[in-house]
């Protein structure tokens, strides 16, 4: 009876479980099955055994895509979290401009990827692009560059656009975290004469641990899965420099009609993302408990 009582609360999760079962678990199982076939998206699927997986692990291009994805994700997560924290800490201290700035920082995220991608493409363009024109206007012609046309800078340029788009997100989450910090705690430390930096370092950062968890996990998962900006801005180019794993999947699915192969890639990506999310979650959660 008591055990039943203990588990009754899980009835609350029932609607969510039903929805996630139907819309996520079932499709994943379907993909898993398709990953062992030569399905083209329509018609009959023939079993091909492990062939799709074999190809993934024997061709260097998929390993390259994995590296690209990981590098891209690390860049985005680190810079975006730092920038978001910076803005949130700043705005927390400035109630007068907080709402205005939060709304302004959020504006980029309100546009769809398509729009953001094209805006940045025009900014980065080597001919009359906004960035190069701006550099010329302030006398820095020497810094002009073919930003997304050069494989050495393309990934950074795309990552920058991605960070630009989502910094408002990160800031908003940190600000929500700030709102949850009891104000008396802050008041007390202020009365004790703690400087702004000391309060930030010793009170705010530890208490923001849950916000760190959400921010880092969401941006990691989101960025590992992303294909939108590379797809729009560079189509994975120049010559594969920005081809992420997801972009490979999109290309195989919709450019080449290799659903079976794309399913195998999706499964591998799913395993990767879940693994990363799991490790991160354990680590970040343990950090939360210390405080």
């Amino acid at each position, binding site marked *: 009876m008591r055990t039943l009582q203990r588990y009754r609360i899980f009835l609350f999760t029932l609607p969510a479980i039903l929805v996630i079962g139907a819309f996520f678990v079932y499709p994943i199982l379907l993909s898993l099955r398709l990953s062992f076939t030569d399905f083209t998206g329509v018609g009959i699927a023939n079993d091909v055994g492990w062939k799709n997986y074999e190809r993934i692990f024997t061709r260097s291009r998929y390993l390259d895509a994995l590296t690209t994805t990981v590098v891209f994700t690390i860049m985005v997560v680190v810079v975006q979290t730092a920038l978001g924290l910076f803005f949130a800490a700043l705005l927390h201290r400035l109630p007068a401009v907080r709402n205005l700035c939060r709304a302004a920082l959020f504006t980029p995220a309100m546009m769809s990827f398509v729009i953001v991608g094209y805006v940045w493409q025009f900014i980065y363009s080597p001919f009359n692009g*906004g960035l190069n024109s701006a550099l010329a206007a302030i006398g820095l012609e020497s810094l002009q560059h073919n930003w997304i046309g050069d494989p050495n800078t393309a990934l950074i340029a795309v990552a920058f656009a991605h960070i630009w788009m989502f910094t408002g997100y990160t800031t908003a989450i940190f600000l*929500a975290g700030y709102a949850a910090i009891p104000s008396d705690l802050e008041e007390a430390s202020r009365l004790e004469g703690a400087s702004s930096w000391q309060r930030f370092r010793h009170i705010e950062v530890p208490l923001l641990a849950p916000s760190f968890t959400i921010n880092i996990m969401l941006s990691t998962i989101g960025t590992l899965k992303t294909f939108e900006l590379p797809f729009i801005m560079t189509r994975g180019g120049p010559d594969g420099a920005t081809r992420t794993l997801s972009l490979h999947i999109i290309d195989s699915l919709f450019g080449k009609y290799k659903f079976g192969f794309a399913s195998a890639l999706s499964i591998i990506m799913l395993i990767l993302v879940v693994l990363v999310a799991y490790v991160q979650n354990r680590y970040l959660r343990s950090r939360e408990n210390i405080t």
Partner: protein
Amino acid sequence: MKIKRRVGTWLLSAMALILVAFMLLPVVYMLLTSFKSGTEITQNPLGLPANLDFGNYINALSKMNYLRSVLNSIGITLSVTVLVSFIGALAAYPLARRTNRLARALVLLMALGLSTPNFVTITPIYVIFRDIGLLDTYTGLILAFTALNLPLAVFFYTSFIRSIPIELEEAARLDNCSDFRIFWHVIRPLLGPATATLSLFVMLMVWNDFTYPLLLLTDESKFTVMISVYRFVGNHNLSPNDLFPAAVLGSLPLLILFIFFQRRIVSGVTAGAVK
């Protein structure tokens, strides 16, 4: 001392505004460009438009089924937001408060949902909706978006509820309140900031997605605003003087909604603090 601090705050505010303005430069660039003619864009990429020409906008407006699609988008977006927050918060409560094996398994299930690439779910969702007759209905689209955003919501609320001190519940538990009553009367009122932030994410995703409306809707009168934008500009042979005005028109209602919404969130948070 006080004056010094006030000057400091003032300087800091100015710095924050400058930084934020710097972040907004690309948006300004887009706005300026949306008023320029095609030749002006390449010949004078950074300058102010020669004259405030609304021609691009009038052209875009006349060809998009604008008002109707904005109303559709608002209705769909708000419905999804409400549904997602409710189902998500409800599911998150036990996951945040229990640490047994079942809870951990369910957290993993949510993580799985969160990690699933979107394109994996397209075909199954279509087939399910066909079978239960939800194609080309608002309900179907709302359900699909709710499902897609649910893992995020559960994850978000779980983390937030964990930061709520458990002592608050214990008093209610001593009064023999049921779990649901505790959730509803103790936990739910505290979820304001989390709901506010989550709603933003959900609204953005729903507003800007056009794969699912395109897949699930065939009736033109049900189309969302992003489909209007997208039908107007296409995705080949893009010209900036079509794209940018349409983009501004597509995002503007969301921005207005957000500003209106933010007021309410902030007042909600303050009210909670006073209590």
